């Protein structure tokens, strides 16, 4: 530790300075720390405020609910608001599960194959193809909606969940490909080469060498795809014509989107629609974060 590391005003006599911290501690350090925590608490309140409003309002007796009393705690717990909106959202929740689960699984599996090929079995032109795939991640969906409705109704895939699943698989591919490509790039080439020397072809190497080590990447890809498919609105709104097939976001917008809806019902429906992805985030946030960072092309 160098001589210049510690300002002696901050270290009382007889106390040994903490090792490994080469910082100059200014005499303002304690105030800075207090200020930091104060600001963090302020931001914490700001970020959690809408959640508080959601939960508290949904649990109030409908008679007690008002925009002006939104911050008051409920005087009695009531599940009436949930009971009112549940029947309207039930089908939407089932539909969203039925579409988000297969879409995220298939998209991840195809992404794993693409990612493997693009990192370990680069065919001539692979470096040209990859950026083209990536662009699909950023494309505004508005610019494909009209041809998509036309194509899907031509194929007879408009209206139900099948077409929606297909679309979510395809537009999920750029990100899943990216996730697996980065993941497999981190695996040493020697393992792949060793398999090749042993006479394994590309497919065998993929199935027996790459896939067995890929579960962490699958966790990231599946969780992220599940969340995006669940939260999607545009594709669902264009491709489902019958309310029996509405995903939960469409149902939510139609129930709680109007200005005439009671405040408590709007909050209870929003809470129900958010709960699954929120649970995924709370339980598996680590993987969610990696998907998020991959989306920024930062690996």
């Amino acid at each position, binding site marked *: 530790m160098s001589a210049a590391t510690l300002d002696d005003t901050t270290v009382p006599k007889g106390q040994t300075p903490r090792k490994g911290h080469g910082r100059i501690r200014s005499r303002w350090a304690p105030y800075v720390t207090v200020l930091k925590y104060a600001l963090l608490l302020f931001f914490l309140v700001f970020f959690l405020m809408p959640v508080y409003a959601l939960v508290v309002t949904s649990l109030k007796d409908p008679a007690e609910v008002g925009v*002006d009393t939104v911050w008051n705690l409920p005087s009695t717990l009531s599940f009436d608001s949930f009971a009112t909106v549940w029947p309207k959202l039930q089908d939407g929740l089932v539909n969203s599960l039925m579409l988000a689960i297969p879409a995220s699984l298939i998209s991840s599996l195809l992404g794993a194959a*693409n990612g493997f090929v693009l990192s370990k079995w680069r065919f001539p032109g692979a470096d040209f193809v990859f950026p083209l*795939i990536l*662009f699909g991640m950023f494309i505004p969906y*508005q*610019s494909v909606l*009209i041809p998509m409705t036309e194509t899907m109704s031509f194929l007879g895939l408009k209206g139900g969940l099948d077409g929606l699943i297909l679309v979510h698989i395809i537009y999920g591919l750029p990100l899943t490909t990216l996730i697996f490509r980065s993941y497999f790039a981190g695996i040493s080439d020697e393992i792949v080469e060793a398999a090749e020397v042993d006479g394994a072809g590309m497919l065998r190497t993929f199935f027996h060498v790459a896939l067995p080590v890929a579960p962490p990447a699958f966790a990231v890809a599946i969780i992220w795809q599940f969340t995006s498919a669940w939260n999607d609105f545009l594709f669902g709104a264009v491709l489902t014509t019958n309310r029996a097939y509405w995903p939960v976001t469409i149902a*939510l917008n139609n129930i709680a989107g109007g200005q005439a809806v009671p405040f408590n019902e709007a909050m209870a429906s*929003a809470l129900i629609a958010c709960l699954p992805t929120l649970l995924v985030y709370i339980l598996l946030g680590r993987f969610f974060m990696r998907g998020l960072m991959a989306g920024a092309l*930062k690996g």
Partner: protein
Amino acid sequence: MRRFRRWGPALLLVSPSLLLIGLFVYGFAGWNAKVSTSTSRGYQISDDYIGTDNYEKLFADERFGLDVRNVLIFTLVFVLGAMATGLVLALLLERGIRFESFFRSSFIFPMALSLIAVGIVWRWLLKGGEPVGGLNKVFDSLGLDFLVGDWYQSGSSWAIASIALPAGWALSGYIMALFLAGIRGVPDELREAARVDGANEPRVFWHIVRPMLWPVVMSALVILAHISLKTFDLLLAIVPKGNLGLDTPAMYMWYTSFDGGFYGRGATIATLLLAGIALVIVPYIWYSVRSERKK
């Protein structure tokens, strides 16, 4: 033949994905551009060709002019707000904070929520007028009366800027995560060396960390700007239908195509939207891929 044996299986494995992406991304975007040069309406795509008529009409369209102005105001306020908030949060959390992961998760969780739900909640929190409620109530009871306002309902030409608040709420945590990763990616030896030379922490940040954050600033800007241009779900959930004061190109495209069946005009707006986003995204992808190859 040997070449095929080497690359054939790999190409076969990726070709379904490549074909689908080629068709659904590039094929559809191209087709959409073609629709923008036709008279398509009544929920029908027609095969005629009218050149740039739709574009000329759109540029003369008062509503579209307003939409472009709105989306630019929104982008400005949202991008700057989310960048500043994200950076401040990252600096606050950067080191030695207890419960760091709790704070971090609490700032990022909005990313996991549907923007329709986020919009519904904020639509109520930002309600103006009587009775005083939501966020206005908070300002009111804190004595911050000057912050009480009508937000998106104000009818002011800057009303769209109030949507930056929920949008920033949803995305600042993401920007924080990007900055945090950037700050922590700065090698410890560099900071240590500056400290040994007698630099205090603010100077270490300014002279060592800050110059290395430019790539993060660039990616955060690109990501926010492109999200901002695309913003749709949030607006749809907050803005009452027919309120043109808060209209944007993405909203106009939606209503004219799927409420009115004016595919020609909708495709024209969508093509312009795609061009705007490509302008930001293509250099970004090019830069990312190139810097990866250099490694």
